[in-house]
């Protein structure tokens, strides 16, 4: 080995594999869209609503995991970003809905297109807030960052509370109902895909390196501030979209929903599932959304049991359900077929 490090080769053809992956994704989307009608008819509204919440919480938990779990920046402001997305998208569909009908009434799906654009706008506004706030606050470490982001979430909430055109203290009513399982799980799948691909890439391993040792990461040429802000912005973007889905599902928004207790709910999902495990966040988001509903039978003891279960879980598995591991379909498949994969190549 004379020169162990050589320049990278120019991009060679692996386009077919990439195209195949996109076809699979499109197929899944089509299947989801088709099954939506069936599900609407088959499930009662209560279960449907819970499934919507599960999907939204998956989006929020996975996006927060990028910040808290992978990059190791303890943020308590996720509900604030969710609120920004919720109110932004709701205001857009609420005020532009009539206009869209008038201008594009004849175009099929005009309202759906407006809804999607509003979701994206909500995500962008949340991401910009993340960028604006991330640059000064991400210089802080540990507890200080947690407190700063907690303050940020509260500031967002109080500002919205004083905006009269989104209902102010009365709450925002009359938001059109647009969210369905297709959009909820489409967004959740997209969030998972993006966070997964970010964190497995060589460049994206910088996020994990920052969590592991910020000084060493910086010494290896990683601009740690830039990557912390990137994690914050990407996380905030998906939180904003999740907020938009939430707004168009419940059709009524009040700032109390987005208090810091909501942020803590998402942090609990991330910690319980395992910091740095996407599948862990997915499972924890589902369990922690469904569990309180299952415990309704226990009436006034419901939250006591819920809290006790959390304590027991954290005592039994302090690293979270999955730690930093992932459940992978391929690995499970390999195990079922009884052959073992070579150690991570």
């Amino acid at each position, binding site marked *: 080995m004379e020169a162990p490090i050589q320049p990278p080769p120019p991009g060679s053809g*692996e386009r077919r594999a990439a195209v195949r992956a996109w076809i699979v994704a499109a197929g899944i989307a089509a299947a989801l869209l088709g099954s939506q009608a069936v599900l609407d008819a088959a499930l009662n509204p209560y279960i449907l609503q819970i499934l919507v919440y599960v999907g939204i919480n998956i989006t929020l938990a996975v996006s927060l995991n990028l910040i808290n779990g992978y990059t190791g920046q303890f943020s308590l402001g996720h509900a604030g970003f969710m609120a920004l997305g919720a109110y932004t998208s709701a205001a857009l569909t609420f005020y532009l809905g009539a206009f869209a009908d008038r201008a594009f009434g004849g175009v099929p799906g005009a309202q759906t297109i407006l809804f999607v654009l509003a979701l994206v706008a909500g995500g962008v506004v949340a991401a910009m807030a993340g960028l604006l706030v991330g640059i000064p606050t991400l210089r802080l470490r540990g507890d200080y960052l947690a407190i700063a982001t907690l303050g940020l979430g509260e500031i967002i909430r109080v500002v919205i509370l004083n905006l009269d055109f989104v209902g102010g203290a009365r709450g925002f009513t009359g938001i059109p109902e647009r969210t369905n399982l297709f959009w909820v799980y489409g967004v959740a799948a997209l969030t998972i895909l993006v966070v997964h691909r970010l964190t497995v890439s060589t460049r994206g391993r910088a996020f994990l390196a920052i969590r592991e040792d910020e000084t060493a990461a910086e010494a290896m040429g*990683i*601009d740690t501030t830039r990557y912390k802000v990137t994690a914050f912005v990407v996380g905030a973007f998906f939180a904003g979209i999740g907020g938009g889905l939430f707004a168009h599902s419940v059709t009524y928004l009040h700032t109390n929903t987005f208090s810091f207790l909501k942020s803590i709910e998402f942090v609990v999902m991330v910690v319980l599932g395992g910091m740095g495990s996407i599948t862990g966040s997915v499972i924890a988001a589902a369990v922690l959304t469904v569990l309180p509903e299952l415990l309704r039978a226990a009436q006034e003891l419901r939250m006591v049991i819920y809290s006790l279960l959390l304590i027991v879980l954290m005592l039994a598995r302090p690293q979270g359900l999955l730690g930093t591991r992932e459940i992978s379909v391929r690995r499970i498949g390999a195990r079922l077929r009884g052959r073992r994969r070579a150690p991570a190549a």
Partner: protein
Amino acid sequence: MALLDILNCTLRFGGLTAVKNFSLALEPGELVGLIGPNGAGKTTIFNLISGVYEPSEGDIRIEGKSVAGMRPSRINRLGVARTFQNIRLFPQLTVLDNVRVAFHTQLRTSLLEAVLDDPAYRSEEAWVEDQAIALLRIFGLDEARGERAGSLPYGEQRRLEIARALATRPRLLLLDEPAAGMNPQEKGELMEMIRWVREHFALTVLVIEHDMSVVMGICERIVVLDYGNVIAAGTPAEIRRDPKVIAAYLGVDAPELPGNDAPGAGR
């Protein structure tokens, strides 16, 4: 031109002067040792060169370009890589990922291309992996590539840290006590490896080391530091005979050392 030029650097923490008027020039290809008793300011000098601290006075230049006040990541881009006295790997990441991360500054594709699974990104990933495994092989760590870095034995962690530093493609390598905690045989192998690596990667090496057999064995030039001051500099043979060095290390009282007014000189 000198690869590294430290010009009259002083670093103060409030009232404490950690490094006083320190100057050092490294020519390309040199292998220089930095020694001195505990607390002499050796690691502080590494932190100054790598950008962890900014000098209170003086300047640091890499190939004539001033780097004082630059972020460590930018200084790394200019070709300075280091290891740490108290090993700082990414313990939860695999051995392979530790090295992979260090290719960061050589990547051409962006995070967006990673998310889109672009073909250019894929071929770059394959390239990084090949290069990383080749580096691990040099250090005898390619078998352990799938293990968590934190679970490696101590000596292998030290080697992995050097491999990771080399992955950033440095011209100047700073090694902070590479032989700490090694047995005599491992030390021998380490010296062999440092020489080999310098040759094959065309490196300039600055090494802090307490173990005199290692320092005297590999360094062509040695700088001795005590209380933030340079007290001696020269070839290993000169340093070995220098009375000030002997005094600093053995604590000889200082009547025969005029001008040594450092506090607590008679330890």
